[in-house]
């Protein structure tokens, strides 16, 4: 069959495709569909097997990376084989693919950028599936690292999709990369308290908590004189999975120890000054001072 009625020359592979479609090749079409279907199913099975094998010897992230790369390569080969089997000239197709990819690339710049960024992420591995990360103020655990985007689950179970390009450009903080972390507390005590005693009490709080690591030692740093309190930085090391328990226990223990030792945790004091004169005098309203508030009792 010829396509002279079109009055312009067609690229070779399009002519091949049209000729293929024009001819009565039901059997061949069925064969192509079946090949693609069976090939795709076999590929999926192969991916599962490969992932299972790799996961036994390595981590989840590596298994995802290798199986996906393998999937795309084998998928492309399968497609080429099928196209060749129906008589499409692959050299012409590949030649046209260059021109098409340029046009497609310009049109899908963002998508391709995300795709390439995805490969960077998979290769560089700044985080893995299951890690808790912070990106641009979003904190969540990594659900999957796909080719164009990374999916997170925030701590309140909100699903977040972040384009890979953003991740490559942004500063990513991997909170759970290392098995242990330090948790910092800023603790203020009244100016009347002896700072050496406060340091001693805080060290005892750290030592008494079994969830707080003995080594590295807890950090107690006298940070300076705040508006209303002497300020201390109290940093305790802990195993990353015990975050909530450590935070609650340490704060409760600090409060209990300070109460027991009579160390005051102050609240801010404010002096009100009107104009340039003396501060406004404030007195308790009692009978002794002669200042008695109007009674609110219902007689």
């Amino acid at each position, binding site marked *: 069959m010829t396509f002279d009625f079109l009055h312009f020359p067609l690229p070779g592979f399009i002519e091949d495709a049209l000729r293929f479609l024009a001819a009565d090749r039901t059997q061949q079409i069925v064969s192509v569909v079946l090949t693609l279907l069976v090939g795709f199913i076999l590929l999926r099975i192969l991916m599962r097997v490969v992932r299972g094998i790799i996961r036994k010897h390595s981590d989840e992230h590596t298994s995802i990376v290798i199986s996906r790369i393998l999937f795309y390569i084998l998928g492309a080969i399968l497609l080429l084989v099928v196209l060749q089997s129906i008589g499409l000239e692959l050299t012409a197709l590949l030649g046209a693919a260059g021109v098409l990819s340029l046009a497609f690339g310009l049109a899908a710049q963002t998508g391709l950028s995300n795709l390439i960024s995805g490969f960077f992420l998979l290769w560089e591995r700044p985080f893995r599936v299951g890690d808790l990360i912070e990106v641009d103020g979003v904190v969540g655990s990594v659900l999957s690292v796909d080719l164009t985007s990374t999916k997170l689950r925030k701590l309140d179970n909100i699903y977040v999709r972040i384009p890979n390009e953003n991740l490559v450009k942004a500063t990513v903080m991997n909170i759970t990369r*290392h098995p242990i972390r330090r948790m910092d507390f800023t603790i203020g005590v009244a100016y009347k308290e002896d700072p050496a005693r406060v340091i001693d009490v805080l060290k005892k709080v750290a030592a008494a908590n079994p969830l707080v690591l003995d080594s590295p030692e807890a950090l107690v740093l006298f940070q300076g004189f705040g508006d209303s309190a002497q300020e201390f930085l109290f940093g305790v090391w802990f195993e990353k999975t015990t975050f909530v328990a450590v935070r609650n226990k340490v704060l409760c223990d600090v409060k209990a120890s300070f109460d027991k030792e009579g160390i005051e945790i102050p609240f801010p004091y404010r002096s009100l000054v009107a104009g340039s004169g003396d501060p406004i005098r404030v007195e308790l309203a009692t009978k002794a001072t002669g200042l008695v508030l109007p009674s609110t009792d219902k007689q």
Partner: protein
Amino acid sequence: MPSYRPWDQIVLGHHERLRWAVRDVRIYLQRDSQAWWYCSFRGEQALLMPDVQTGSKDDGLPEKSDLSWRRWAFGEERPYAVIRPAVPDRPLVVRTDPPAVVPPECRATFYLAIPVWAAIAIPSPERADTLRDLQVVPSDELSSTWFGDLGSGILSYSLTSTAQPEVSMLPRDPLSAVCCCTLFNKSTEDLPVEKICLQASHLALFESGGRLWTNEAFVSIKGGDEGSRVRFGKLPPRTIREPVHLREAEKVDDDNPLKRSFLFGR
């Protein structure tokens, strides 16, 4: 009501209860026709002598409002359950107090008190002659620590007891096993030893003369980048007479015998 030693294997009949009390650890295990029940708690008073008794299910329980039972529904498939000793699930860091120095080409032996936990075990579904732990009850609340540098260290338990040069210096405790650890300094420099990190998963447990022992550990340090070589023997020291094997080590052979982190001097 018959009495037993702590690690005796006791077969409970239907509707029978085992009361296992060693030091301040209390475990109750009872059997119904379709399930095994268990609860544990830490007693207020430490027992000087271990006390293991069996009795009927109606025997009095302590009056504790927070006593909660767990149930394993096995039916008739698991004919018995035992309470057996177990080692903690992480490496153990022991200090030498005062810090010791091992000169070049010299050996030093340290005795360590390894905490022993109580594990409730049943016959393994795969092999009836082996046991599988269902629940491990810690005998002490061990403090966590990090051994090594921040990048490549290991999460461990820190022991309050210290490594001693003689076994007689360790307290006799029914929930503690003695581990004999020999260091051989093969380097040309003094080896300062402040802490020893012991891979608990390589420790087997034995009983001899009413005391628990682990298999021996041997460490040779070549110094420099060659690190240290660790080898775990199969038995306690030879001086221990007729050791009764209580529990296999979780890991027998180390994948990488060269462990830089085993010893942490300075």
